[in-house]
């Protein structure tokens, strides 16, 4: 990983190859003015490359003389190998002493390979696989039926007994058997806990073309990976909004919609259409015929899983919150309306509880938790925060409603983590001038979850908001003003915003974020308390969900969202649900493990837990009402306060 050194701060950070120079500066906490989100138009983030090489884009904001001196705009510059840059004084937003620190590295987001390494190597076959069955041709002395011939061969060659063979498959057998000279490829499905099944045949040996689709059915986004079942390789992936979004953004609205006339069928159709489109997209991307897709494994939260299979989720919404099923039978892809071989089967990852779904089970499996000796905390941050604590011997989980703030919902200028969303924010403590970076370095359109966490943490550290998240009206700063909804902090002025309107953070937005983070922290602490376990004993924290590289852990701790633990104990898994579905599609053992996780996890229902509300209120404060829980945050706050007083 290249090293980037910033002068005159004299700090070095390690970044991934090709990293944006402005992001590297943010990671180092080197403050550089930047107000356009990183699309090169404000021309403020000037740096002078002194050593090493970078890949940069020319800019009309820089004179020829400056270019000759090595000036670049950091936001349009990528790091190639070790590089040393100097920050000219005019690029500094204020006069605050540098808070920059050396040695910081980007968050470790576990790749599929990293995850693979955490999971014991398996050589077993997929739960749904093509098996070549070679039968002795019939003659007058060996005159048993085609079906008996097949069943005998399956038992002898593949140790499959008591196989269920539906009538559709039997109908195809006489022709296919003879067309393939008594060598056929059977689509064998071996569900967990029920009898194996042969759902179709192809003449000859077609095992070379065996593909499966791993599906993550998110409430907002669906994502699909095409897996080659022979090599285990992911050939293509694609994501798209879940078309159900048109019927309501959150799970509860969908449940309500499903209870209306024809609502269930409508919602099922929408999600099936989304997944079908994605299936066609990844297949054409990888040049694979959809006929060679023989399996789907889908992981989704409990409501999504119900809707996907056309099962009513309406009783999940009301006490005592009972789902129709935790483990669903496998179904035919054709029956659901999904593309694939006529015999293709669809399995879903079991959902242990109404508010603990297959997505979490899949994520837990993908993270290697069920094999780990280490006490691990698995946190999936989203509208629903799901928290799992345990190791290879036991698992305890809970789910807490954080509200949509992390996905930009309920935030005046909030948006999903899509192009143009402000995802990183730094604030100069003397002037309160914001420094922002948006996803894809596009003109800023709004703010997403990680940007929101950054912004609130920075405002708090700068003393611009109090522990209740209220802006200080007495601060004389052009960035704090009275808006339509009371006091607001201006992140981006109207002239630099992609929407034409200023992007602001209101006190209500801050309050919503504090509520969301309080729910997550309360969930974590109640789970630990229920086991009489001190949180500092947690050996590893795995964070799943859309947050990745740029979620700044120290800032997440500063606002009191997750317990203060050494940074090296954290890792990020990204879309754990999809990763887990990929594992489950490759190996029946993995699928079995997922079922076991779903069966063994102890679910703690927080809606009836008196301690939760108590924890929630005490966490609805920055960083927490019990300040002794966040000594580092308190110390930082003290240092910053001294700086301000001194400045």
């Amino acid at each position: 990983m290249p090293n980037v050194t910033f002068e005159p701060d004299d700090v070095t950070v390690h970044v991934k190859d090709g990293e944006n120079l402005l992001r590297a500066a943010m990671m180092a906490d080197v403050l550089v003015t930047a107000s356009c989100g990183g699309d090169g138009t404000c021309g403020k983030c000037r740096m002078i490359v002194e050593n090493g090489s970078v890949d940069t884009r020319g800019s009309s904001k820089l004179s020829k003389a400056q270019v000759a001196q090595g000036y670049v705009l950091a936001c349009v510059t990528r790091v190639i190998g070790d590089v040393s840059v100097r920050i000219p004084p005019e690029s500094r937003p204020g006069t605050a002493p540098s808070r920059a620190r050396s040695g910081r590295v980007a968050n470790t987001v576990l790749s599929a390979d990293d995850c693979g390494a955490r999971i014991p190597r398996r050589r077993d076959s997929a739960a749904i696989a093509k098996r070549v069955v070679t039968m002795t041709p019939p003659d007058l002395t060996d005159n048993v039926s085609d079906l008996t011939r097949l069943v005998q061969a399956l038992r002898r060659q593949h140790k499959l007994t008591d196989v269920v063979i539906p009538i559709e498959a039997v109908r195809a057998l006489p022709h296919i058997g003879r067309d393939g000279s008594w060598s056929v490829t059977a689509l064998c499905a071996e569900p967990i806990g029920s009898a194996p099944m042969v759902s179709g045949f192809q003449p000859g040996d077609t095992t070379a073309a065996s593909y499966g689709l791993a599906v993550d059915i998110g409430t907002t986004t669906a994502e699909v990976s095409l897996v080659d079942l022979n090599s285990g390789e992911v050939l293509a992936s694609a994501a798209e909004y879940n078309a159900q979004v048109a019927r309501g953004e959150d799970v509860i609205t969908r449940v309500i919609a499903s209870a209306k006339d024809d609502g269930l069928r409508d919602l099922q159709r929408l999600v099936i259409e989304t997944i079908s489109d994605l299936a066609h997209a990844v297949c054409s991307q990888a040049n694979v015929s959809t006929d060679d897709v023989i399996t789907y494994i889908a992981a989704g939260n409990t409501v999504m899983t119900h809707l996907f299979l056309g099962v009513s989720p309406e009783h999940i919404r009301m006490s005592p919150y009972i789902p129709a099923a935790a483990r669903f039978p496998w179904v035919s892809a054709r029956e659901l309306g999904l593309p694939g071989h006529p015999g293709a089967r669809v399995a879903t990852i079991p959902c242990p509880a109404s508010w603990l779904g297959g997505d979490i089970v899949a994520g837990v499996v993908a993270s290697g938790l069920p094999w780990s000796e280490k006490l691990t905390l698995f946190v999936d941050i989203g509208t629903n925060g799901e928290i799992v604590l345990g190791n290879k011997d036991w698992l305890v989980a809970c789910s807490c409603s954080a509200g949509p703030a992390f996905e930009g919902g309920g935030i005046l200028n909030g948006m999903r983590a899509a192009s143009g969303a402000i995802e990183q924010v730094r604030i100069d403590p003397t002037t309160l001038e914001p420094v922002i970076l948006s996803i894809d370095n596009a003109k800023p359109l709004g703010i997403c979850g990680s940007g929101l966490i950054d912004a609130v943490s920075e405002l708090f550290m700068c003393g611009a908001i109090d522990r209740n998240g209220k802006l200080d009206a007495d601060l004389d700063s052009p960035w704090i003003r009275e808006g339509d909804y009371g006091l607001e902090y201006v992140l981006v002025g109207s002239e630099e915003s992609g929407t034409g309107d200023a992007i602001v953070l209101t006190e209500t937005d801050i309050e919503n974020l504090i509520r969301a983070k309080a729910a997550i922290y309360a969930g974590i602490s109640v789970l630990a308390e229920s086991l009489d376990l001190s949180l500092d004993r947690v050996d590893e924290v795995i964070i799943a969900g859309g947050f990745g590289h740029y979620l700044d852990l120290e800032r997440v701790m500063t606002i009191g969202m997750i317990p203060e633990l050494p940074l090296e104990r954290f890792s990020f898994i990204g879309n754990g649900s999809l990763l887990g579905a990929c594992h489950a599609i490759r190996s029946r053992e993995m699928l079995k493990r997922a079922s076991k996780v779903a069966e063994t996890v102890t679910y703690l229902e927080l809606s009836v837990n008196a301690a939760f509300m108590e924890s929630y209120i005490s966490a609805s404060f920055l960083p927490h009402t019990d300040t002794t829980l966040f000594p580092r945050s308190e110390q930082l706050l003290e240092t910053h306060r001294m700086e301000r007083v001194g400045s």
Partner: protein
Amino acid sequence: MSFTEPVKKTNGTIREVTLGSGDGAYVVGGETALPFHTFEGTMPHKPAIAMEVFDVAPEGWPAPLVDALGDVLADPVAWARACVDTYGADMICVQLASTDPHGNDADPEQAAATVRAVVDAVDVPVVVYGTGNAEKDTEVLKKVAETVTDTVLGLGPATEDNYKAITAAALGYGHVVIMESPIDVNMAKQLNILATQMGLPADRILIDPSIGAVGYGIEYAYTVMERLRLAALNQNDSMTQMPMICNLGKEAWRAKEARVGLDEEPTWGDHAKRGVLWEATTAISLTMSGADVLVMRHPEAVRLVRTAIDELAAG
């Protein structure tokens, strides 16, 4: 072998808060044990009774109150004197009801003048309550704080919405702030953290935990107060170690049981006794859960509560 009573040792001490000045200064708090657990620790100051005086003649009060207080109701100064001279009040609590923006909406200057007059008329400390309208209270209490600077007043209620301005005013003029939170341990604590971080010394804060009268949620208040006290004493939680003030007169006399006469409820028994007992029972229950200052209304209820406190304190 003789029996030794088990004694629970505590780690924390409730802060002593001084109200008033000179000879009239009065200290509350200072406990090192649960209320009246003098076998486990000390209770250097018995719970104080702050008798209420309204800055405008109250309307629609039930007969027992009007009968007991009679003609002083229209004159805050005379009322305050009667409370101190006749009924032996430890403190006076001026309720600035006239400033209610939905009522008389009196201006801050007028309210401050009344407080000034009451302070001059009595030699006991004075605590001042606004009407609970965050915006108006801010203006009024600021004015009161800057008008009366020769003694330490208790100013409240300061809530999440207006604690900043009230704390700033109290800081400048040396007053004590009454921090009111909605029956919640954590929220009470949060407000104390916020105020102390503005530089207000922790011994210039009283906690008003918000209470309900007997029959109207007193059990919630009782539990929250008890938990605040346990956190303060057992966990030595600094931000819960402030004395507590209970604004209970208005709650007790709001209860239907204290308000209605025999004409309406002929089977409920003597109205005068019933009202007094409603207030007294509420007050005594709250002293049991840690109240350090009781804001009370009826002279007879005050007498009963004082007797109870004295007897309990005597062991």
